[in-house]
């Protein structure tokens, strides 16, 4: 029973490592990588909700037979949307990092801000 839940273990490991990188590191690029790791963990969780035992992809071109068991198509469609939104958020975060580096000259989050 425990060995069959292995994908959920991978999701929990990704989220914990991403949260650790976001909380305990002070370089700005490492914080951005931590946010991306949490996003990858959530996408993996959304896909593993849609699997049936001994199933094939929900595509009729070249399917093994007309009565084969297929996996659920709706979680795959929602994961597609989530990946594209993750790319958009990553592009905006990196643009803000470029502006911060131009203004302050350093990438350390302990030395920016604090002006009166």
């Amino acid at each position, binding site marked *: 029973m425990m060995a069959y*839940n292995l994908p959920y273990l991978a999701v929990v490991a990704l989220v914990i490592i991403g949260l650790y990188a976001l909380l305990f590191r002070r370089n700005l690029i490492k914080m951005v990588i931590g946010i991306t790791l949490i996003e990858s963990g959530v996408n993996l969780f959304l896909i593993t909700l849609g699997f*049936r035992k001994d199933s094939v992809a929900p*595509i009729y071109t070249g399917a093994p037979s007309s009565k084969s068991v297929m996996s659920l198509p709706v979680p795959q*469609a929602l994961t597609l949307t989530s990946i594209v939104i993750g790319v*958009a958020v990553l592009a905006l975060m990196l*643009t803000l990092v470029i502006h911060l580096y131009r203004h302050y000259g350093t990438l350390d989050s302990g030395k920016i801000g604090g002006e009166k």
Partner: protein
Amino acid sequence: MFSNRDLFGALFLSVVAGFLIFSIFTIHPFGFPNTPEMDDYIINNCQEETGANNGVTSVVFDYRGMDTLGEATVLFTAVAAVVMLLRRVKKND
């Protein structure tokens, strides 16, 4: 020797990790989804209602087209914001 911020971070991380590891034991087993009735209807009827051989594309563009419209809007807004933030201003001096 650890600062206050590190202690609060470790406490928060251990609470979240404990909650996530507890949820591994109580979620449904991998490979047996709970309610597959909507997806069974989509698999059985997607070829005569939309005419596509691909179930995932017919869900993305026909059965749930509004989500794709929202996603295209988010992508357009992000690209417009990035191009506007990194434009080149001419110096007048």
